[in-house]
Every structure is written in C-alpha cells, then in structure tokens.
C-alpha cells in the first residue's frame, strides 16, 4: 500500500498550521519541522507490519431511546460563554458574510 506521503517542509507546515488554526513563530517552525519529520519516520514501522489489509474489528453501538431530558445546568453553560447577548452566544468579530466558507 503506497502512502505517497510527503516529507514535512516549510510549505507543508504552513498548510498544516492553517488547517489546525494554530500559528507558529519562524523559530518554532524550524524546530518543529525537524521534530515532526523524525517522529513521522516512526510511521514506516506500521507499513512493514501491516502488508495485508485486515478489516479492523467492529462492534455494535448502543442506540438510545428518543426520550427528551433537560440538562440540569444550562445556566452554568451560559455562564461559561466568553461573550454573549442575553442567551445568545456571540461569534467573535463576525458580521454578516453570507454563507460560510467551509460548509457541511
């Protein structure tokens, strides 16, 4: 099974940061690239061990009854909201932008 995986370089790391919504300083990036690549080197172990495609074990998940129950501490949840108006959670700095960019 050919993974076709790219080595992690500066561009790759930038893209990963964007995907994960994390930003790094250049120094952190340089450091991280070396570390990520050495850790990623571990992964070849897996390919050598799993040449055959086994189906991994599956079990049945429990399905709950459709009976409503009200959570007892909604107030606590609303108290934790960093910015809100009445009981509406406010989105930081978002104004009407039409539909979203990454949509379901």
């Amino acid at each position, binding site marked *: 099974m050919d993974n076709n995986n790219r080595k992690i370089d500066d561009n790759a790391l930038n893209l990963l940061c964007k*995907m994960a*919504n994390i930003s790094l300083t250049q120094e952190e990036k340089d450091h991280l690239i070396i570390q990520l690549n050495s850790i990623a080197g571990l992964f070849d172990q897996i390919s050598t061990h799993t040449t055959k495609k086994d189906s991994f074990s*599956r*079990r*049945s*998940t*429990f*399905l*709950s*009854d*459709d*009976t*409503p*129950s*009200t*959570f007892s501490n*909604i107030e606590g*949840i*609303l108290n934790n909201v960093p910015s809100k*108006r*009445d*009981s*509406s*959670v*406010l*989105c930081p*700095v*978002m*104004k*009407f*932008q*039409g*539909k*979203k*960019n*990454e*949509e*379901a």
Partner: protein
Amino acid sequence: MIIPTIGLEIHIQLLTETKMFCRCKSSFGDSPNSNICPVCMGYPGALPVPNRKAVEMALMLGIALQGDIQLVSDFSRKNYFYPDLPKGYQITQDSIPIVKGGCIHIREDSTVFLERMHIEEDSAKMIHETGADQTCIDFNRAGVPLLEIVTHPCMHSHEDAGIFLEKLKQIVSYLKISTGKMEEGALRCDVNVSISQSEDTLGQKVEVKNLNSFRAVMRSIQYEVQRQTDLLEKGIPIIAETRTWNDEESKTVQMRIKDSKSDYRYFPEPDLHSLVVSEEMLEKAKCSIPELPRDAYNRLVTKHGLSEYDAQFLTASPDILQYFDECIEGFADPKIVSNWISSELMKIMNDRNCTIYQIGISPKKLQELLKLIQNETISGKIAKDLLPQLIQTGKNPSDIVKEQGLLQVTDDNVLFEIVNKVLQDNPKELERYHAGEEKLFGMFMGACMKATKGKGNPKLLNTILREALKK
C-alpha cells in the same frame, strides 16, 4: 445542442423528539440556547450516544426509496472549523452510509437514481441580523438529526429537479419523518449543474448553494445552464467553483473556487462503535411504512375509479389522503368526496391557511352531510350552504337540516305547481325558448330553484321542467 445535467444534495431534518447524539429536545422556535447540554455544546469530556429513532427513520426512507440498506455502517468525523460547529468536527457517515442507492420515479418513464443516504448531525444556527454588529449563534439546532441524500447526476431539466424535490417531500411527509418544508429549513438543497454537448460526456460541474425554495432551485438551474452555455459559446472554460444564489437579483454569484483545501480529514468516529441494524429494527421499519404516495394514487384510480387528476390532488399530502380515506369508509361515493375536498374544503384551507383537519369538520361528519345529498334529503346546494354552520356549531348535519326545515322538496305536485308558476311568470322567455334559445333552460331552472328556496330536488325539477317545456 446543450444537454444540462443536474445532481442534487439534499439534507432533511428529522422529526425526532431529541437530537442525534444527546437527549436534548429537538424543537423549533424555542428561545435561543434553551435546548443545550455538554454534548451538543462540544464540552470537554462529553460523548455522543446515537438516537435509535433517527436510525429507524433513515431505514424507513431507505426502504421506501428501494435503497440498499447497509446492515453495518460507520460514523465518521468530518473535521473543519466554523463557529456553528461546536466540536470542530461533524459526526456524519463517510465510507459506509446506512443506505446505498435508491430511486424516485418522477414520471412514468423517468427515474432519478440516488447514490447514497446517510445520517449526520446538524450545525448550530448563526443569526446575522441586518444592521447588527455581531453574529449570534443559537445551539438549539446543533445536533438535530439530518438525513443527507445524494442523487446521481441524472436529471436533465430544472423541471425534473423540481418534480424530484416535490416527490421527495411528499414521501418524507407520508413517512412522517420530516415536514420536508424548505421554507422552514426542514429540507435543504444544494445543486450541481453541468452542461455538455454530447450524451456520453459530462461537463465541469458547478455547485450552487443558498437555495430557499423549490422555485429557487429551479430558477438557479435555469440561470446556471444559461450562464454556462454563454461561456461555452464564447470558448471560456467553466471552472470548478461554488456559487451562491442571489434571489433578489435572480442570479448565481461566485462564492469560492473549489480546490483541494477542503480537506476534511475524515476518519472513523472513535467514540462510537459501528451502526448495526438488527433484523428486528429492519422489520419494524418495514412495518412502519404506510401506504406510499404512488401506491395510494394507484389505489384511488383503480379501486375507487377516480380520475388521475383527482388521485394526484388527493395524494399530494398525507393528511388529505387520510381525510379522504376516513370519509369514504362505509360510503360508496368516492367521487363526491373527492369533489368536495378539492373544492369546498380546499377553499376553506386556502382562506384560513389551515390544514384539512384544522378546518373543523371531521371526515365522518362530512360523510354524513354527503349521505344526505346522496339519499336526496337535501340538495347539493343546500349542503354547500350548510357547511360553514356545521363547522361553526359542530352540530350533526341531520340535526341542522331538521332544525331549519331544509328537507328537499320531492313532492311531484308541489314541484309541478312551482314550474307552472315560473313558466307563467316568464312568458316572453318562454316564447324565446320555444323559438330556439335553449340556453334559457338554465334561467328557468334557477328561477324554480329559487322558488323552492333551494330545496327543490334538482333531478326531479329538471325532469318536470323539461316535460312542462315540451308542451
């Protein structure tokens, strides 16, 4: 020759009591953020527990659409960031959906084939108020169960797309799994449109979003086909993109260019085991499926002898069909029931903007009223006049008829006298009739009916009048 090809991606909100992965109430119109809990708010430590009812509803639809039920399917995580997505991922089904395939017949000769159907959770609702400086998020909707249906790109006209959506809405409302109303957000639809000059190849498809009605779906398809055709004629290549429908200006506008950046990093949901459908669940789902629109239509035509038009009308929505069926139970005249529903009742439903059961006359009461016409106790006209009273007072038809002395006049002698008097009172018209103006028959009938205060038996009156006019 331009051949448009259309594929649809539809999301249907299910009418379960609770959300897909927690037991918060799934209900619309409640005050913001009142149906929330750690699970649907994406709190640390909260874990999903799937809703069996939602699975049952998915099975019902899968079976009704003749899909291939996957007895074992998996949940997956679709990872992306957006304020309406509490966990930063959506629990959906990626590699193995609960239903593969399926189809809906949209015309005698035309079938739309489905690629797949799967279960997933809805996102929260973002409310952009015009003029407001910030967007609000209401998590009541976060976690509500959705069924996603993907069609094959096999429709070739905007009308077909419209019919498909109508049929789908009809089926889900028959199954009582969703209202299917786009205006309420219970049914959402994205469109993929491409054009080609040959039947064997497909052009570059373009996605259109932000459609709020079946009409918008059809209009956007028409617009896109035209836009793409214009580009093709100019030799400009069509790019892979997502466009949004602007209803006011009736056009699609570019939203973003499709590229590989939409990497959702799908992987199997580790907090859940597989979704296994047992034999009992499958049986239960099969048994829960009521008569479907197509079968009801056939039954109305073949068994009850109704016209195709009438059958179409009566099966358009499940409650009208149910009302009709209840009304004809033990009553041998489906045609008159059908007429009354499509005219008298329909008028009231339109005027009052209510459903058939909300009108206030039960199927059995209507049946009683219609029986009085059938056995000639009252005339059809009297019956129509009585309807508002019946609705208002809730009394039995026979009681009101008795109270108001509305019994039909069937005495030959009485009718004979009335006919004679009318003819005597209208000598000029009588002359004209005998001279050849046969249309005046209607005027005489009207006058006679008026003289009987509407209680004259129309058939008898008709016969007697004809006899009298022959002289």
